[in-house]
């Protein structure tokens, strides 16, 4: 983000927050949006293959899992520590998520 954008965001009149980009939103300690993907058994469980999730800035993979599981059924049936890939690479629970990350929930694999 350039200085121009920073100044603009600092001096802009207070409009509806949802119009502000996530890049600017950190100035307000706001949130990051990630896209969660669900495959195979997880997709069947949840009835959806993708979901946009808003998380506090600095949230980790584990935070995302907690947020989803906290939504109650059927999300609460997700494992406490599912395998997760961030941007198509296996990730650790402590990895920090960034705006726009693609976070895939990987059920136990059965290729071959």
């Amino acid at each position, binding site marked *: 983000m350039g200085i121009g954008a920073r100044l603009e965001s600092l001096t802009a009149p207070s409009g509806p927050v949802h119009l502000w980009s996530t890049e600017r939103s950190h100035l307000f300690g706001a949130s990051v949006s990630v896209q969660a993907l669900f495959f195979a058994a997880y997709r069947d469980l949840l009835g959806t293959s993708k979901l946009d999730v808003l998380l506090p800035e600095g949230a980790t993979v584990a935070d995302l899992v907690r947020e989803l599981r906290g939504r109650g059924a059927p999300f609460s049936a997700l494992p406490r520590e599912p395998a997760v890939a961030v941007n*198509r690479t296996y990730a650790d629970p402590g990895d920090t998520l960034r705006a726009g990350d693609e976070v895939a929930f990987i059920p*136990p*694999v*059965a290729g071959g």
Partner: protein
Amino acid sequence: MVQASVVSRVIDSAEVLGRVGAAEDGAVLLFLGTVRNHAGGEPVEGMTYEAYESMATPVLAQIAHEAAGRLGTDRVVVVHRVGELAIGDVSVAIAVSSPHRAQAYDASRYVIEEIKKRLPVWKREHYTSGRSEWVEGVQPGRAPASSGAEGRAS
């Protein structure tokens, strides 16, 4: 010439085999994974394979490169199929070649075992009874820490 792909068409095993082999090779090996007609004593009539394709392709390539590191040649080709498969259909084909057989057997085995451990692919068994179920899989792990993109000779 390490090659890895995830496809939705029928795998032509002869074509896969034809992509490896060189004048200095004394061992050419083709492994085919096929859909069998039973699971846990229950008759099976078909299988649906699903992949997280944008991740499965690079993971498969990574596995193939690691295998090449063990093999000592770059002649590793692996093709994994997704979609609806019938009994006897080839779900995965692995072709390798090297000067000597020990390395070829080792590398071929490595590819299929690593696929089972970490390739983001799932399969649903369709039983003759009409029931169907996701096959119980393996919790995937990261790539072995000791293996770089080029793998490691063993």
